[in-house]
């Protein structure tokens, strides 16, 4: 039937997808380490329109003898046929830093991810709101161990310090006896030893990482395998800070208005197509 209707319809459907993305960004406006998504559209393949039954030549004849011709192109031009959602693109901009009261909170300033061991394989996160489990292993909120470069990180409350390089130091006086808990005030750091360093990774193409929910990312075959990040690219690690969400509410609001209005204009296109069809049926084709 009428092409414009389907074109505008495809626009409305694509805009719905964009609205889904915006709503998810706004819902995660306060989620630590969240990176906002942008939905990217692509045009459908274009059609080349051409007049039917026309070879494109207009010839002049005098007494059945061709005396000349002009070239009138039978090609009308191309016609777009609408739009579709092509990809959801995650923008890895730095989020702002929020100071917290917990020593188990760490934030990454710069590119890279913490490594988390889940039963389904290694996953990566920028949400550094960690805890310890009863045996002292550093875990995420789901209870998945956070990995250092030598494996699990076993620490005690009030007996670990993370420097800007992500190195974890402990005071060796308190590490031997598991029953010996430590208080902030008593820790003099007399036998400070290096324990481990956070395993911070990067992939070739972070754009192709896949979001898993629970602030976790998974590598895909297009992102390339995770490798420990180069020394010069290594992000700063800030203890007692969390990285806030990088969603900008103003941009999201503006995009929401844009979506709303675009959706409306697409609707108007459908309505006018509808109207012209009805005019055609009512007035022109009246028998």
């Amino acid at each position: 039937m009428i092409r414009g209707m389907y074109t505008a319809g495809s626009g409305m459907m694509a805009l719905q997808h964009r609205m889904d993305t915006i709503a998810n960004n706004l819902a995660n406006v306060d989620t630590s380490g969240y990176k906002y998504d942008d939905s990217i559209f692509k045009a459908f393949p274009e059609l080349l329109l051409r007049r039917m039954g026309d070879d494109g030549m207009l010839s002049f004849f005098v007494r059945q003898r061709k005396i000349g011709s002009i070239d009138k192109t039978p090609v009308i031009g191309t016609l777009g046929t609408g739009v579709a959602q092509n990809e959801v693109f995650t923008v890895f901009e730095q989020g702002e830093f929020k100071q917290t009261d917990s020593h188990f909170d760490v934030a990454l300033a710069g590119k890279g991810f913490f490594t988390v061991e889940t039963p389904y394989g290694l996953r990566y996160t920028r949400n550094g709101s960690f805890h310890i489990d009863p045996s002292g292993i550093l875990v995420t909120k789901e209870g998945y161990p956070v990995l250092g470069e030598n494996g699990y990180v076993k620490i005690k409350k009030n007996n670990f310090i993370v420097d800007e390089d992500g190195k974890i130091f402990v005071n060796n006086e308190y590490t031997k006896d598991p029953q010996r808990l430590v208080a902030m005030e008593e820790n003099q750091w007399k036998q400070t030893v290096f324990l481990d360093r956070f395993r911070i990774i990067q992939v070739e193409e972070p754009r192709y990482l896949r979001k898993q929910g629970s602030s976790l990312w998974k590598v895909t075959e297009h992102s390339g395998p995770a490798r420990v990040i180069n020394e010069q690219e290594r992000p700063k690690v800030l203890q007692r800070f969390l990285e806030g969400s990088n969603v900008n509410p103003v941009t999201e609001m503006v995009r929401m208005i844009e979506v709303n209005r675009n959706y409306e204009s697409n609707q108007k296109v459908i309505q006018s197509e509808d109207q012209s069809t009805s005019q055609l049926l009512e007035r022109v084709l009246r028998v």
Partner: protein
Amino acid sequence: MLRSLWTAASGMIGQQYHIDTIANNLANVNTTGFKKNRADFEDLIYQTIRTAGTPATEITLVPVGIQVGHGVKVAATQKIYEQGSLQNTNNVADIAIAGEGFFRILQYNGTYAYTRDGAFQIDSTGQLVTANGYKVLPEVKLPKDFIRESLSISQEGVVTVKIPGLDDPIEVAQIEIYRFPNPVGLQAIGQNLFIPSNASGEAIANRPGYNGNGKLIHRFLEMSNVQAVQEMVNMIVAQRAYEMNSKAIQTSDTMLGIANNLKR
């Protein structure tokens, strides 16, 4: 229907929890030994609309899939065990813990609970109990005819008291405090009490003042560690985030209205 409606609704529900937490913190701004809560959020699962790596044409693959998130969830409400400020009460049965640790309480059902609220009472039998009448463990039983004002508790938890006819105070009990490898894993059960969980680890008994355990400060109480200004700022953030999500719902609603208006 539009996915964004439910996504934004999850955002509103999440912010409601946030406000609930803040309201509880503010309500307990004057509760002895109260530790503030913090709500932490995580994103929900993602729906894959198109998988990366599927063929786009005969020779090319789709490099990036389309994944749409479904909103947000509350991942944890975490207790922040910062020291609260100490207030002098001059009440003989008040004890504050300065530093790490909890008092152990015997509940009526025979199980242990732990608290930092040291507003204790002395009951008719001379037993040290909480405001709800739960025994403090290890038991502190005072002699029958003790002089109330002479009750003294040292920083190390030694309870001494004078009885008429004796010049020297006598030692009646040793208060112990209990610590957990991961106090964040304790479960709050109300009445300022906590019970251990699998996440907190087992309680470790300790003498106060040693090995980094908290000291006991007699005739003082530990105030709530809620900071009103911080909570107010959090409240503004939560309210605005709530509002933004409601706008997303409104927009989705308008879009549905527009779609409905297609048919005149």
